[in-house]
């Protein structure tokens, strides 16, 4: 166990994977000599050379397209997209090719690419360095979607992703890259997909969150506890595959649900979770499912604190559902 930040844990995960398997390689813009604009790939090129840590031209189309070709051939590429906001030039490759290779070939062509991208707001990044568009990828059959919120999960889920047989979108909450710290197991630490993490048990309301929203939910829970409201916090960790069983079990216990994410509300991930509960936990629900999310506007610069969910907004929503039913 070593204490480290979330971005260091990502870095350690990459080191470990490259050590384990010579077929693992990393590619992206500024990932080599520069060590990545967030330093997630720092030191890799010195350890593993420019053939396995590849600085690419400025083309996300090329990064993902060539990563797919490598994966088809049998390598295990880990592509970095510098900010999730810049993934769209690769969107065709991701939704039309990466997600569909195995299916369309009748299973002949697995395509195990991991795409890492820092995402989310809270760094004063404005319209184009702040977005959370995980819902696009969740809606795309064939992609797994993973979002850690702690250093240990960052390393453990990343190693699972790299050794998975399917394509994985691995989104890193850059806002807590350096503020989330914790003990991380050394060596080959893996966290399985499809298992939510109960951050805190509670009786009165279930708060579902992921990524940088998890610490905010915990803050809200602490405030609620002072008023005798016991909130259960579930960190979803993998959005696809989703641990629906955990979500439903929690609501069966608490009878109330608040779903939190930074992304815009309309057709966001929270809609899916809310719909699952409205269908499968219907008879347990005592009050409406509330969503605490970004608003249905592009992400702003000066007003990012207005846009982003806060612990206070989460707390207020939890109080509402508790009051209502």
């Amino acid at each position, binding site marked *: 166990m070593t204490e480290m930040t979330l971005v260091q844990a990502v870095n350690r995960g990459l080191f470990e994977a490259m050590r384990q398997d010579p077929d693992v390689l990393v590619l992206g813009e500024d990932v080599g000599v520069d060590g990545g604009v967030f330093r997630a790939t720092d030191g890799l090129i010195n350890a593993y050379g420019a053939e396995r840590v590849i600085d690419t031209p400025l083309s996300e189309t090329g990064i993902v397209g060539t990563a797919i*070709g*490598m994966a088809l051939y*049998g390598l295990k590429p880990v592509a970095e997209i510098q900010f999730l906001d810049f993934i769209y030039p690769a969107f065709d490759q991701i939704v039309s090719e990466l997600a569909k290779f195995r*299916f369309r*070939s009748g299973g002949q062509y697995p395509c195990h690419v991991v795409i890492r991208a820092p995402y989310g707001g809270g760094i004063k990044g404005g319209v184009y360095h702040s977005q959370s568009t995980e819902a696009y990828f969740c809606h795309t059959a064939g992609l797994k979607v993973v979002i850690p919120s702690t250093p240990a999960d960052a390393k453990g889920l990343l190693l699972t992703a790299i050794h998975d047989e399917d394509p994985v979108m691995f989104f890193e909450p850059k806002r807590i890259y350096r503020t989330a710290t914790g003990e991380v197991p050394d060596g080959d630490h893996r966290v399985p997909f499809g298992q939510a993490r109960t951050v805190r048990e509670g009786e009165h309301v279930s708060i579902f969150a992921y990524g940088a929203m998890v610490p905010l939910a915990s803050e809200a829970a602490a405030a609620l506890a002072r008023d005798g409201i016991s909130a259960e916090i579930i960190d979803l960790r993998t959005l696809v*595959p989703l641990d629906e069983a955990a979500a439903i079990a929690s609501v069966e216990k608490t009878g109330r649900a608040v779903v939190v994410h930074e992304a815009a509300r309309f057709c966001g991930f929270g809609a899916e979770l809310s719909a699952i509960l409205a269908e499968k936990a219907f008879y347990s629900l005592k009050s409406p499912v509330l969503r605490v999310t970004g608003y249905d506007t592009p992400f702003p610069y000066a007003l990012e604190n207005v846009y982003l969910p806060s612990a206070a907004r989460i707390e207020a929503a939890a109080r509402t559902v508790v009051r209502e039913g």
Partner: protein
Amino acid sequence: MAKTARPASEAGPRPGHELSNDRLLAMYRVMAFARAIDERCLSLQRQGRIGFYVPASGQEAAQIGCAAALTDDDWLFPAYRELGLALWRGVTFRTLMDQFLGTSADRLKGRQMPNHYGYRERNLVVASSPIGTQITHAVGAAMAMQRRRAPQVSATFFGDGATSSNDFHAGMNFAGVYRTPTIFFCQNNQWAISLPRERQTRSATLAQKAEAYGFPGVVVDGTDIHAVFDAVATARERAVAGEGPTLIEAQVYRFGPHSTSDDPHRYRSDADLAEWKRRDPILRLREELQNSGTLTETGESELQDAIRREISETIAAAEGAPPIDPATLFDDTFAQRTPRLEEERAEFERLVREGVIRP
């Protein structure tokens, strides 16, 4: 302007790239087979026996000349119009018919429209519909070959229209930067559905686009199988020698409709077509083989008979295959079904049991 785009074989093939009469005859057989398959499948589609078809007629010399200059270990990244490649690589017509019909015998499990196939053991990667996307895959595979020190090349196949795609630009650029062992084989069949070549781009040739990426581009007469073979063999030699990629523009003409959904009379004249048909690659090669005494009149008619028979028998057999098991829909989205997919599969099975779905 088209500086880098020199004709591949002005003075005949380069040494070592000559094709023997036996080799030519083998190529001719596959070309004739491809042409016959095209004709039959167009009529199967009209009869409603297959759902869709993309003919490759006119492009046989380009496809088979190219495939023959590569080894079976080289990876091919085709588009949807590459019948010649599949046949040269030994994919049987039966395998293709199974795909066209989407039956339980289809190796792709009925997932794709006709002509969108691929077979792993043939190093023929499964095609998709979006134009150009295979180009970057070929470059990535070539980067992997470099990493593994494998004496292979990747070759990717696309049309004149695809040169406008994002992946053409990205793939060519990455190939140039990393000097990958990749052959970019553009079949310029003069049309992207209704858009003529000269309105696809203002460059004098497509081959000269390689200039933008710092490696050579060559124009070749795609109806001349010798010229195609020579150009590809040369490009392959460069690639395995570590000299990097080559763009080859094979100039051909699409004889048929874009697909069975297309009516070319809306946008092009028969005169052009007639002009190009005089250079039909199959007629050209047949004439050559007849002149050299390699193919006799009898030989030709026996060949055509054999082809006709094989096609008819294969169709009949393939049409007898049972339909695909509907529960297979839930496989291959992921390596293992997720809980969500298990649930959807169970929902589907319940609906079948309840008679709601009659698959």
